[in-house]
C-alpha cells in the first residue's frame, strides 16, 4: 500500500465534486483526544463512482459525514460542488444537503410513518415541488428502482432490500450531484446486494451522479471505479480497485 494523504480526483468532466484539504477531525472522549481524520486531502471529480474501504475506526464514516455537511472538520477545508462548507450557515448547509447531496444509510433510515412513495417524495416536498409533479417524479423513480406496486407500503412492510431501494430512490429524487452511501449493502443478502449495486451503477451511468461509498464489502470495492483505502484517519491507498485489492498500490 502506498502511504499517501493527498489524492486527486479522476472525474471525466474535470469538475471537482468533492474536495477535502488537510482535513482533520478530532473528538474528545473525556480527557482522551481521538483523531478520526488526520490531514486528509482528497478530490473526487464529478461523475466518479468511488468506494472507500478500511477497517472499522479508520475514519470512513467520519469522512462521509464531513463530506455530507453533517459534521464540521476540526481543521482543513471542505468543498462540495464548488461550495466551501466553512462559509455556509447551518440553514445553507441544510439547503445544500437537500438540493445537492443524497444519502443512503446502512440501516436505510426511512421515515417509518411515511409510505415508500412518501419517503421518496419527502425531499421534493422540502424543495417545494408541487404535489402532482413530485408524485409523478416519484412514481417514475420507484419504477426505476423496481418498486412498482409497492408505493403505498410502509417501511415495516418492506424487506431490507426493498427499503434500501426506497432509500436509493429518496437519495436520487431531488436530483443530487453527489450521493454518499454508508455501507449500503451491509444489511442485505448477497443477491440483494448485487441488485442494489446494479441499481446504483445504472443510476450513476444514466444520471451522471457522483457516488462515494464507504464499505467493507469486496463486491462494492470491485465494482467501484476508484477505490480509496483508509487507515487510522489517513488515505493510505487510492487507485483502481483491481490494483488496490491485488496489493499493487
Amino acid at each position, binding site marked *: 500500500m502506498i502511504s499517501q494523504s493527498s489524492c486527486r480526483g479522476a472525474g471525466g468532466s474535470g469538475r471537482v465534486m468533492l474536495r477535502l484539504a488537510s482535513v482533520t477531525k478530532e473528538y474528545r472522549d473525556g480527557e482522551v483526544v481521538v483523531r478520526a481524520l488526520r490531514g486528509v486531502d482528497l478530490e473526487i471529480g464529478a461523475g466518479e463512482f468511488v468506494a472507500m474501504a478500511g477497517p472499522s475506526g479508520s475514519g470512513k464514516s467520519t469522512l462521509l459525514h464531513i463530506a455530507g455537511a453533517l459534521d464540521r472538520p476540526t481543521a482543513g477545508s471542505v468543498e462540495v460542488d464548488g461550495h466551501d462548507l466553512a462559509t455556509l450557515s447551518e440553514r445553507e448547509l441544510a439547503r445544500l444537503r437537500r438540493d445537492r447531496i443524497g444519502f443512503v444509510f446502512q440501516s436505510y433510515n426511512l421515515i417509518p410513518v411515511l409510505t415508500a412513495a412518501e419517503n421518496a417524495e419527502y425531499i421534493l*416536498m422540502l424543495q417545494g415541488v408541487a404535489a402532482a409533479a413530485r408524485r409523478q417524479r416519484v412514481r417514475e423513480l420507484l419504477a426505476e428502482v423496481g418498486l412498482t406496486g409497492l408505493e403505498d407500503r410502509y417501511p415495516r412492510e418492506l424487506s431490507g432490500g426493498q427499503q434500501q431501494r426506497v432509500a436509493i430512490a429518496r437519495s436520487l429524487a431531488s436530483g443530487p450531484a453527489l450521493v454518499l452511501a454508508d455501507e449500503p449493502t451491509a444489511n442485505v443478502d448477497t443477491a440483494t446486494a448485487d441488485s442494489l449495486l446494479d441499481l446504483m451503477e445504472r443510476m450513476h451511468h444514466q444520471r451522471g451522479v457522483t457516488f462515494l461509498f464507504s464499505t467493507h464489502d469486496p463486491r462494492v470495492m470491485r465494482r467501484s471505479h476508484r477505490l480509496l483505502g483508509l487507515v487510522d484517519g489517513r488515505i493510505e491507498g487510492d487507485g483502481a480497485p483491481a490494483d488496490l485489492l491485488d496489493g499493487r498500490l
Partner: protein
Amino acid sequence: MIARMAWRNLWRRKRRTLITVASISLGLACVVFFLSLAEGVYAQLVDDAVRMLAGHVTVEHESYRDAPAVDLVVADASSLRRRIEGVEAVAATKLLIAGQGIARSGRGAVGVSIVGVEPQVEAKTSPLARKMIAGRYLESGDESLAVIGSALAERLGLTPGNKLVIASNDRDGNLVERLFRVSGIFKTGAEEIDGYLVEVRLADSRGLFGLGADDVTQLGVLVRPGYDPARLREQLAAAIGDAEIGRLNLAVRPWQEVIPELAAFIRLDRVSDHTFQALLVVLVLSTILNTLVMAVLERERELGVMLALGTSRGRLATLVLVEAAILAAIGCTAGLALGGAVSGLVQVYGWDLSSLYPNGMTLSGLALSTTIHARVSAHKLFVIGALVFAATVILALFPAFRAARVSALEGAR
C-alpha cells in the same frame, strides 16, 4: 405532509396517545363540570338571595348602607316604581321596609329582623313564600299577621294562630309595640333566616316604624332572564334621573353592595375553585408534556435523519408543535363535549343531593336547594378549551425546542 406525519406519529403509540387524549378530555371535562356546577350554585344563591332580599339592584337612601335605620327612607316610592318598571330589563319590583326589633311571646323574647313586604309580590318572587312548613304565607288583605322562621317559632313556642308581640323604635325613636298573629312558619335551612326573620305586610311595618304612606327603606328590582344585571344599575339610574336621585338622596346599588358577604363568599369560593381547576389543568398538562417529551426522545434518530436530509430545524419544531396541537385539539374537543354534555344534563335536570344533606344546605348564611343545577356557558367552554389548547401548544415549545436541537449526525449513524 407535515400534518400527515404529525397525525401518523401520534398513532404510532396508540395506547399512549389514547391515554393522553383520555387524560386531557377527562381533566377538561372535570374542570368544565365543576366550573359549571359552581356557577350554577352561585347563580342559584344569588337568585334566591336577591329574590328574598332586595333584588338584583336596590334603590335606597344613600346613607342607609352606612347605618341602616328606618328613618333613612326612599320617599315617593310609587312614582319611582313606575319609572323603573318602564325599563325593558326589569322583570319585577318589590317594596321593602327593613328594621330591627324584639319578638316576644309568653315563652321569651328574641331580637329579630322585621321586614315589611308586599305579599302579592313576594308570593311571585321570593323563595320564602314557597318554604312554608306550617300555616300559610301572607296575603294582601292580612292585617297584623306575620310569618316567622321555624327556629324562631321553636324558641318562642309559637304555632300558626298564636300571638306575638313585636317591639321596635319608630323613626322618631319612640318605643312601639304591636300585636301580631302568626300566619305561617317557614323553614329555609339557614339559621340566620329561620332564627331571626319576621315578615309582615308593608302597611303593618309602616305603622310599626311610623313611616309615611309612600315610604320604604328599599325598592328592589329584579332583572328579566337573559338581561345583564350588571347593566341594569346604569339603566335604572338613567331612568330615575340624576336630579331625582339628588333630590331624594338616593343610591342605586347592585346586589354585590347590598349583600357584600355573599359577593365576598362567591369571590373567595371562585378563587379556591379556580385554584383547584388550575391544579387539575397543570396535572393534565404534565401528562401532555410527558407524552411529547417521550415522543421526541424516542425519535431523536429519526429526527436526525430528517435533519440530515435537509429538513430545517424550524420544520422539525413545527412537526412537534403540530403533533401537540392535534393532541390538544382532540383532547379539548372530547373534554368540552363530555364536560358540556354532563353539565348540560345537570343544568336541565339538576343534581339531587338531598340524601347527602337531609337537613338542607346553606352557603354563606343562605339556604340552598338540595337539587343543584349547573350553568353551562358557551363562552366559558370556549375560553377554557382555548386556554388548555394554548397552554398545550406553549408547553410543546420545550419538546419542540429539543427536537430542533437534534444532531444530523445522530440520524446518519
